[in-house]
């Protein structure tokens, strides 16, 4: 499995290199977005991150979401499993949340409520709902399917000294946005900035990745912000520690560990 993934990555990177080396035979906009999704949502075989989210309203009042996220990728653009443990705030401490994400159907989601020792199955087709009260939606956290939009390369320009593809994404069906403009780093394919436009064609949300770190050879956006330009509310996200390719077992993503999170994985 792992060898096949590495082979696919080598082939993909090879293709990118070949195409990049021969002007006139550049990547299509869809290939750029595919590479972006692969690097942003499917980096590594698995990942463990301690994530601090600050939810800040326009008056400056802060709320905190301190969580550990474990993620395992089963196929690029395909099945993923997430395990989230909340450290803070105190009223949700020890709450855990598990998602099985599938490429072709709705997620399976489970929430563990420690106060009544209940594992609750929760409805999942709400990809535009807010993730834990932040400015990020579930879709922002776990990604969007490549075939849901049509893509156009608007231009290439520098953003903070980094060469970027500027891609316009228009949803084929109904979506939260009517237009998304993405600044995708030409070197590491991470989205450095995204703008989301509503039905009136007005900008309402803006994403920025303003710290990229190399972690085990994998470029990672360790500081990100999503701002709602209409309400003035913003969410600042810091990946305080991130590790890849730890060999997280399949069994971690189970009801057993949802009820009793494994201490060695959630610290």
């Amino acid at each position, binding site marked *: 499995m792992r060898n096949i993934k590495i082979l696919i990555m080598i082939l993909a990177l090879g293709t990118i290199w070949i195409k990049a080396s021969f002007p006139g035979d550049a990547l299509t906009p869809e290939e750029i977005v595919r590479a972006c999704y692969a690097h942003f949502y499917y980096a590594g075989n698995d990942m463990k991150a301690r994530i601090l989210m600050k*939810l800040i*309203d326009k008056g400056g*009042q802060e*709320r*905190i979401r301190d969580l550990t996220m474990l993620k395992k990728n089963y196929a690029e653009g395909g099945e993923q499993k997430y395990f989230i443990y909340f450290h*803070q*705030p*105190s*009223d949700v*401490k*020890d709450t855990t949340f598990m998602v*099985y994400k599938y490429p072709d*159907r*709705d*997620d*399976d989601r489970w929430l563990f409520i420690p*106060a*009544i*020792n*209940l594992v609750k*199955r*929760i*409805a*999942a*087709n*709400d990809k*535009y*709902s*807010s993730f*834990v*009260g*932040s*400015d990020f939606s579930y879709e922002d956290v776990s990604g969007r399917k490549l075939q849901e939009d049509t893509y156009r390369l608007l231009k290439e320009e520098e953003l903070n000294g980094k060469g970027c593809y500027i891609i316009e994404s228009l949803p084929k069906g109904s979506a*939260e946005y009517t237009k998304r403009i993405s600044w995708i780093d030409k070197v590491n394919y991470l989205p450095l900035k995204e703008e989301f436009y509503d039905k009136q064609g007005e900008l309402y949300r803006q994403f920025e990745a303003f710290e990229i770190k190399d972690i085990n050879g994998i470029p990672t956006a360790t500081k990100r912000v999503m701002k709602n330009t209409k309400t003035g*509310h913003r969410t600042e996200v810091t990946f305080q520690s991130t590790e890849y390719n730890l060999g997280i077992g399949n069994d971690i993503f*189970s*009801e*057993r560990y949802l009820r*009793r999170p494994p*201490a*060695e994985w959630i*610290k």
Partner: protein
Amino acid sequence: MDKVTYNNRIIYLFLLLSFGFWFLTPPLFCTEEPSIKGFLQTNYSARITGMKLPGAKRQELMLGEERGRLEGSYYPSNVKVGFDMRADVFHDWVEDGWGVSLREGYMDYLMDKFDVRIGRQTVTWGAGDLLFINDVFPKDWEALYSGRPLEYLKQGVDAGKFNIYTDLASAEFIVIPHFTPDNLPSVGRFFFFDPYPNIMNREVEKPKTTFGNTEYALKIYRSLDGTDLSAYAYKGFYRAPAMRADNFISPTTISHFYPELAVYGASLQKSALGGVVSAECGYYDSMDDRNGKNPGIENSQSKFLIGYQKAFQNDLTIGLQYYDELMSQYKEYKANLPPAFFRKKQLHQYITLRVTKLLKYQTVKLSLFTFYSPDEEDFFITPEASIKVTDNALLALGANIFTGVKDNTTFGQQHKNSNLYVLTKYSF
């Protein structure tokens, strides 16, 4: 409701030993800190029907309390033993006294393929939303009906729990040596239907803590391609009391007891139809009244529920459930039913609706839960609005509304108990 009482069950001895062990041993295995958290809470509920409850200590006040909670857990990462404890200290305005309540206190022994948990613990089974078939564990209905937070609906059991995990299926086996009844609406706080209101002195006899009265509960479960499947079995007692009378037509003495019960059932939950579909069934074998002729004891019943929950965009979730219970030996039930009793239909049904809407970055929550029984023609409606002022401070305002065509149905008998409640909570 937590009662302002004290007893000296074996659990306290166990906990004393466990926590003694906890305090003595940390230096031996690691330097990890125990996790401590808690909350301070005030919770008041007032009857809004204006009805005077005979014998009530506080007329309008159904619930009035200040409460402090401390929770501690200690799970060192390199040993197999862990501890967890949740305890409340509270002041109760209705009883006018102070009390202590051990909500949970247990020790875990964690192995590769199995776990053991011993002590007071909360167990929640089944696929229903406020409808329980295979969740045979004790509940506090006064808590639900008077606007206490949901966690107080569930009461802990003093039990040993064994979990086994295999690739084929996992199993949970619970042994409960000490019986805990449900807490039902009681004299002094609630209006409720009593077929024999003139007989005041009633003994209540709980199953004694003997080997023969040990309760056993088993759940076998697995997830199959995103579908959660469970099978259940239970042998123990009804948690609502049955009635014993010298004669049911015009009794002179009445006592209450908890008859024997066995339950067998199954449940399923899966993502389907753009939401989550739940189904559960169970057979209640009323072991002390299998022929259905004793009017003081529930007849055997088959219970079934099906539910559907869908999330819409913008933090709106809607859940619907259909539930029914079919009485066995209905002919015997009718033939032996005393005139003072409410006559149930052979098929008793509920339809429930839950609507939850979150606003303002999920700091404001508007929710509604409604029970409706088409055969008993009664409702129980709970609207609630809550606001998270900060991450730590919560304010909730809600109502419990009971209404029905008759005065002696499940919710109709409570129509004088409709109440408004307010909750403030500070977590730390």
